[in-house]
């Protein structure tokens, strides 16, 4: 009978496939994949390193963004490549800060700056080097464009066989809401913890990029005298009242604005008198408690680094160059996760020094030591060598006092 014969085939095919897969599994035990195909690498000029800091070099925002991406993604085999790249037209730090909300898992992509009508060579090279793998929850998208770009940029991407998704909105408030909605779509849920920044005070909010990259909590903007409609709408979209954290002192985000935001959730202000103090206030801040419970399970609220002890990493940025600082948020997404601290080009401000002294490691022993580490973002014209050395001394393990100094 014909059917019986077919069943027989199936029996054999089943046996063969099973045997093959067992053989395959056995063979794999003896197989060592070649993770060392990256043979030739350019030999760039050395950068300034110290025992506890490494400088991420670059003369302009394009180079710096590429250099940061190179820290996180060596791209020597499939698993240390990103899923995508986030392309942000240079020119508005707020756009970059909004784009930082795309970085977090499952997207897993670095921010790279482009020009509105052109992808600079250094970025093109970086995209080629990264060879993004595609995001499986979004049609294997390989690039995100945050903001408006010229046709040429799109054509160049298509020529590189990079399929992309573009976030385009009338203004930066809408853009923030749009990307928030995108993330919510991936997670089928809006994060209840959000940050609010003033749209004219980058120094008070750029350091939130590291937290956004680390945990995926977005930042929305308010202007000096009102809460824009888009921000209101985004806040209302949460399934319940939001937990709202204000990035700014009362001069930057007025008490009136704070009160208005109270309609959309529980408002708290990150501590800090000035921007430098707020970057350390944010690094030390932790708000934990209930978020949402449903009889048999609960999700908790955990916001803020809450770092007040040794064994952590910091990203040093100069707020005079906010666009240079924001892509560094990804250094908290992989590798040495840690908060961003603000410094000036030639000095570490007093609140930051005080904070670093609190978290400075002391010597514990040869077997059980904790270390601090710092990234310095930009060329020495952005953050000077002296600042890097000073930072190094504040980060390094305090050795026990003996007759010689250390």
């Amino acid at each position, binding site marked *: 009978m014909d059917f019986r014969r077919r069943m027989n085939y199936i029996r054999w095919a089943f046996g063969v496939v099973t045997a093959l897969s067992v053989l*395959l599994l056995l063979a794999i035990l003896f197989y060592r*994949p070649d993770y060392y195909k990256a043979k030739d690498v*350019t030999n760039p000029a050395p950068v300034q390193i110290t*025992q506890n800091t490494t400088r991420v070099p670059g003369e302009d925002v394009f180079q710096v963004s590429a250099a940061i991406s190179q820290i996180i993604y*060596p791209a020597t085999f499939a698993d240390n490549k990103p899923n995508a790249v986030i392309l942000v037209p240079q020119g508005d730090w707020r756009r970059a800060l909004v784009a930082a909300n795309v970085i977090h898992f499952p997207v897993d992509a670095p921010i790279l700056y482009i020009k509105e009508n052109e992808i600079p060579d250094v970025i093109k090279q970086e995209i080629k080097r990264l*060879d993004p793998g595609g995001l499986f929850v979004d049609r294997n998208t390989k690039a995100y464009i945050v903001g408006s770009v010229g046709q040429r940029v799109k054509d160049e991407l298509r020529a590189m066989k990079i399929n992309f998704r573009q976030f385009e909105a009338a203004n930066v408030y809408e853009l923030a809401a749009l990307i928030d909605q995108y993330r919510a779509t*991936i997670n*089928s849920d809006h994060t209840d913890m959000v940050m609010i920044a003033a749209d004219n005070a980058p120094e008070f909010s750029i350091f939130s990029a590291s937290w956004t990259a680390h945990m995926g909590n977005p930042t929305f903007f308010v202007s000096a005298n009102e809460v824009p409609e888009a921000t209101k709408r985004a806040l209302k979209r949460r399934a319940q009242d939001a937990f709202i954290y204000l990035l700014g002192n009362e001069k930057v985000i007025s008490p009136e604005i704070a009160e208005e935001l109270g309609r959309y959730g529980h408002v708290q202000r990150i501590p800090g008198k000035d921007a430098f103090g707020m970057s350390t206030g944010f690094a030390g801040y932790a708000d934990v408690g209930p978020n949402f419970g449903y009889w048999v399970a609960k999700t908790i609220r955990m916001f803020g680094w809450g770092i007040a002890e040794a064994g952590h990493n910091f990203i040093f940025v100069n707020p005079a160059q906010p666009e240079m600082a924001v892509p560094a948020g990804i250094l908290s997404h992989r590798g040495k996760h840690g908060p961003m601290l603000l410094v000036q080009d030639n000095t570490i401000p007093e609140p930051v020094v005080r904070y670093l002294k609190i978290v400075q490691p002391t010597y514990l022993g040869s077997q*059980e030591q904790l270390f601090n580490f710092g990234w310095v973002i930009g060329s020495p014209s952005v953050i000077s060598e002296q600042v890097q050395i000073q930072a190094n001394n504040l980060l390094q393990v305090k050795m026990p006092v003996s007759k010689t100094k250390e």
Partner: protein
Amino acid sequence: MKRFGLYLSLLLIFFLILAPLIAVKEAISTGKIPRVIDRLHLNTGNTTRLAEQDWSSMQQLVLKQRYDSIQPDAVVVVDGDSWPLALACQSFSAKPLKLPVILFNHTETSINEVITKINTWSPRGLNEFNGADVLLVGQNTLSLQNELQQRGHNTSVFSNPDIFENVAAVRDTLLKASNKKNQAVLIVGSDNVKYALPAAAWMAHRGTPVLLVERDRVPDATRRALNEIDAENIYVLAPLSQVSNSIENELQEWGQVTRIGEEDPAAHAVSFARFYDATNRFGWQATQVTAEAARHFLLGSIKEDWRIFLAGNQLFSGPNFGPLLFTSADKLTAQTEKFLWSTTPDWWVTPAEGPFNHTWVLGGPTQVSYAVQGRVDFIQEMRDYLDQGDQGISGIEALALVWFALSLACAIWTWFHLSTRLTQVAPFMKLSWLLVMLVLGPVGLWSYYICYRGYNHQVALGEFPRPLWVQVLSATLGTVGFGMSTMVTVAFLLAYFGLPLFILQGPLFWLGSPMTQSILWSYLAALAVNIFIFVPLMLRSKEPSAYWDTVRDNALTVFFSMTAISIGMMSAMWLMQMRGLTVMPEEENIIWWATVWGANIIGLITGYIGNWPLVVRGRKIGTM
């Protein structure tokens, strides 16, 4: 129709066996790499490269970093052609002396460099050395003496031509100067520097002195040194090929002897990095016991000049310290790789909690390739304890793999049993059972046993008189076989080719979510496949009615049954993938399958509940 159903079920069977293996394929495929890699710098998140090509520029870089801001009390200059001396002097860099050690050889520039370096530090001199501010160790350093004295430096010289004597003299000075009770001494073989080098990082950190032996002889100088000052603990850092067993026994005379040694240099360095002796806290103990500690590693190519290691080693003489490791230049040596995996920290609450390891790579990309650096960076990346990330095998994944193997075994056994003992079962029923094994594993086998135990082989087709609860189980499995396997297959394929995502506004925005889309499409596919293909085929032998009549009669029943299964399966998958795991798993990870197989069991339970009323009302048959 029948043929199509047959091929489709064949496809599902193959898919369920082969698709989990894609995870293995993904784990071993390394992807495309551009021929030339353009970089603006050579550092990564977990590694820093000391990109100096030769030892003397490495030395300049490291000494500048390490000592320029702290003004040492004295400086040690050591013969850069004699590794035993250069190694022995590393102990001067540890507490309490904390002296820089400069390697010196004859070239003119080197003399100038040394003198300039010493002058920038302007050491004050140490009483322990009778006021000397420069220690000259080794014969070739004598050429510096005049020059240094002319510039007002006070030198102290160790230039015994016998290397064993000189090493012993260094130990003597070290012990006197640091006023230490001599608790431990390291013994290395004089033959091969590679086996001695791992000691350097420890010596620069802890100041343990070193003595030299030959393979089969304890030289007189070493013997005298051991006689003079007793060592409670003697650590022989050498494999048998370097220091023989008889020497090890001979050394017992002076103290408790412990050997640390492997013939493979990379494994040798690793075994010293793991070593720990609690009696005097000797050894790095870089193991899981000290998983709360962060680690710095110094990594260099085994082929490199020893000078580049000792020059780099000075970086580890102060607030940063840790074991020295070897690799080969263009591939991470297996032993070192294994060690690095074992020291990679797991995170429990947040990846910001640490500890964070950091590896310092010695030399440019020609000395230690960029690919090796990339691999080290990847291995040292923090991982979630439960998930272990790409390439890591977590406990969950290990269990999942065992489950997969069991499922395969169950499927094979069932097929044999069906072919030889239960030949009267309808063909599509057989295929369905096979799929049940693949989606439910041992739980499927248990169900099979419950359904057919106790019936002799003469029972006619579809006439197994069973208790009600087994009838319900059998009826549920009838839907599970083709339904679940279709759902798993469609969910996998959607993820593989990229899930759809629609940004929607309003309260129903979650309908556009990739997870919702995946659930929706796999559910619809399973429903269609069951209603239009498999249920008519399975019932054909039972109820020889027209195709469309069968479809119409059973559509609602299948809908209820399938929905009951999906409710459990899909919500379990959702909870596990979106809430249980910190990062949503990709279909190429075994952990994705772990969630699927777990969800299948939940689906069986809810499906069972949903099928009960259907069987009771006679809408479904549980006696086939």
